[in-house]
């Protein structure tokens, strides 16, 4: 048992920190706002830079442009990116889908997509949920009927994050429309080129007032057969792996990000007086900051332990769901406390030193409400933990 980092890992961390010092968030234009998972804002420019450094394909096989570095190095990278609040969301979103391509894709498909994704030049979006297929994903209705020269796709997706500024959709669709077909033998994944005729992307206004999610309408879209990922009808067999990537890796940076914000709030508390008392000495504020620090670290440690299991190739059962529940519940409580610490001042204008923090906290407080629903609701995730992890009986 060992909870420290090796000298090489510490050197890697310093390398990242040096790079980030030279490339602060302000330097990069962004195409969409910051999320509350620690992925920062969406910036194609920054992600291209990460690609140039070879850091997107860090763990990939060399033949696809990777460095075959261990997962731990990726985890260190994620934490440093999250702490620095750089805009790496575009890359973060791609990571899980890239891993699925590595897992399931044919050699041709890997060669077609991975180099572009690895350079940060091809941005993918996850086209999974539909109006009647959220938690119950397998009820999806978008069809992709095999023709002589393509898959003919018809249907609709919703909650497609940032599709309007991405290139290819990771499209979950029904390739076997036989009503008697079991769900594990009916669904495939297609790489959907957004530029194909028949694809309409319509941004949805979030409760924050900005565009993040989209509806995607598919009207007789002809997707080349070579863009089928893996074997036809067998996507569900790999679904767990995909979800694992989404639930675990997407949440991995969240605790470190929340630690960064805690750090900022501590600074704020040390410099702000209210009714004559320094906030840092106000017991209500102190308690909230301390409780946050404890809970965030507890969550962070579990996520590291799951990363270790992945590294050791220990088969996971409930862990990805657990990561999601822990991180998203923690986020709900943390940003709520953050708003309470700011109190009525949370709504003040942006002119002073802490204006940005206040504005961001308002944003994250609203944003985090959606986190517990994304990637599967926390309720479903808990059910999964109970049935798959603890072997409690299913209904």
């Amino acid at each position, binding site marked *: 048992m060992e909870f420290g980092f090796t000298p090489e890992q510490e050197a890697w961390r310093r390398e990242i920190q040096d790079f980030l010092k030279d490339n602060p968030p302000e330097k990069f234009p962004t195409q969409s706002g910051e999320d509350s998972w620690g992925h920062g804002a969406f910036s194609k420019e920054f992600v291209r830079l990460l690609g140039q450094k070879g850091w997107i394909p860090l763990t990939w096989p060399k033949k696809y442009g990777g460095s075959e570095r261990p997962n731990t190095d990726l985890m260190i990278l994620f934490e440093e990116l999250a702490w620095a609040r750089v805009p790496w969301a575009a890359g973060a979103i791609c990571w899980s889908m890239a891993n699925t391509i590595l897992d399931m894709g044919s050699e041709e498909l890997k060669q077609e997509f991975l180099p572009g994704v690895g350079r940060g030049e091809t941005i993918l979006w996850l086209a999974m949920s539909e109006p009647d297929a959220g938690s119950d994903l397998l009820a999806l209705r978008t069809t992709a009927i095999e023709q002589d020269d393509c898959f003919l796709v018809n249907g609709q997706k919703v909650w497609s994050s940032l599709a309007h500024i991405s290139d290819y959709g990771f499209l979950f669709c029904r390739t076997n429309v036989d009503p008697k077909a079991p769900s594990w033998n009916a669904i495939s994944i297609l790489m959907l080129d957004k530029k194909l005729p028949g694809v309409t992307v319509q941004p949805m206004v979030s409760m924050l007032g900005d565009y993040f999610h989209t509806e995607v309408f598919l009207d007789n879209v002809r997707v080349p057969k070579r863009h089928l990922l893996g074997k036809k009808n067998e996507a569900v067999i790999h679904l767990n792996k995909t979800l694992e990537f989404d639930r675990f890796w997407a949440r991995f940076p969240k605790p470190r990000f929340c630690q960064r914000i805690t750090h900022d709030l501590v600074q704020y508390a040390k410099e702000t007086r209210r009714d004559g008392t320094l906030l840092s000495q106000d*017991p*209500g504020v102190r*308690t909230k900051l301390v409780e946050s620090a404890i809970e965030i670290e507890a969550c962070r440690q579990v996520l590291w332990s799951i990363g270790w299991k992945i590294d050791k190739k220990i088969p996971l059962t409930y862990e990805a769901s657990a990561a999601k529940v822990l991180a998203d519940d923690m986020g709900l409580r943390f940003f709520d406390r953050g708003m309470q610490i700011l109190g009525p001042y949370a709504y003040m204008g942006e002119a002073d030193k802490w204006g940005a923090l206040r504005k961001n906290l308002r944003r994250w407080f609203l944003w985090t409400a959606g986190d517990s629903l994304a990637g599967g609701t926390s309720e479903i995730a808990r059910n999964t933990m109970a049935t798959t992890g603890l072997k409690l009986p299913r*209904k």
Partner: protein
Amino acid sequence: MDFRITPEEEAFRKEVKEFLDKELPKDWPGVDPDLYHEDAFDNIHEVSLAMQKKLAAKEWLGLTWPKKYGGHEQPLWKQIILEEEMTYRGSPGLDPYQFVGGMGDLLLDFGTEAQRMKYLPMMVRGEIKGATGMSEPNAGSDLANIQLKAELQGDYFILNGQKTWQSAAHKADLEPVYVRTDPNLLKHRGISIILVELKKTPGITMRPLEMMSGLKAFNEVFYDNVKVPKENLLGEINGGWKIVMAALSHERAYGVMLLINIRRDIDLLVEYCKETKDVDGVPLSKNKMIRNRLADVAIQQEIARNVGYKLNHLALTGGNVVSTANTVKILGGVTTQRVAQVGMQIMGMYGQLGPVGGNWRQTDPVKDKWTRLGGRMKHLYLSTVCNTIAAGTTEVARNAAAGALGCPREPKPAPKK
């Protein structure tokens, strides 16, 4: 909407308070509304019997019952005030199994004239103790699963089987026992209620169970060919389920009583914090974290208590109590547990000291020298564990409350082929 108290209510409350000041032993620490202290300690049981007789003398037993059965036909608001004051002071004597959503109500709603004439007057005179025979090892949340058999043979029902979690049973004279009279009907359709005179009927064995708090306050009760006259059937044969529903809805009182009672503990903690100084000579009540926690828990109790008032109002005006009763039950459980947690945290290392049952046995000047508040917080922590389980689990209560809001029920599983 009017939250003011009328002069009559004010006057009656004053009368009850003065009665309690006069009749309760000096420095009475207060029992909890669940009867566990009374069951476990003979001296408390003696006080309970004495108080019961005094309540009878004041004509406060069967306050709302018809005069023809010895009752006093007083308005329900008086009964509510009596329950509140007795609960806040932790006074035993107003047996809930008879007078607070208990047998009295069941007899009035479902009993025969003969049963009412036989039993209600002796209740009003404070002559007997009650209990209730519902739970079984496999009939807890799933109450319809009752198995204790009652076969009608001539003029008698013959009872065979077992009950469990029976608080107060070993001291009780009379209880309604929930039995299965027809095993061939669907679960809840084959249930009946039979009034059993526990002390006078042979064949009944009680085995006391010890609670995790150390109190021996509930029992397993075994029925071995127990003969009960058929006249003791309450309501119709196999018609017991609607009586079960009525009895459960009367359990509204439990949540409210828990919330009133726990106020005494909050007040106790506040006093303790004002009197106890930290190393630096400053009272604990000035410690901001402690203030925060006590305020938090007082707010919770006050809010929950107000939901209890709403429940009382619904009962007084004949409104539908189901949803609110469930909410109050849940709030009662979680609020009492929260107070216990805060209490233990405030006590710190001292929290673990104290005799079984808390502040009832301050008898050993050496062993109990360092005990604070008589070990009340320890007892509270251990005893409140059951508050989210007994008289209906919080999970079931939440389902019921959601159902009352209009949420659809879970579909029943398809019958197995």
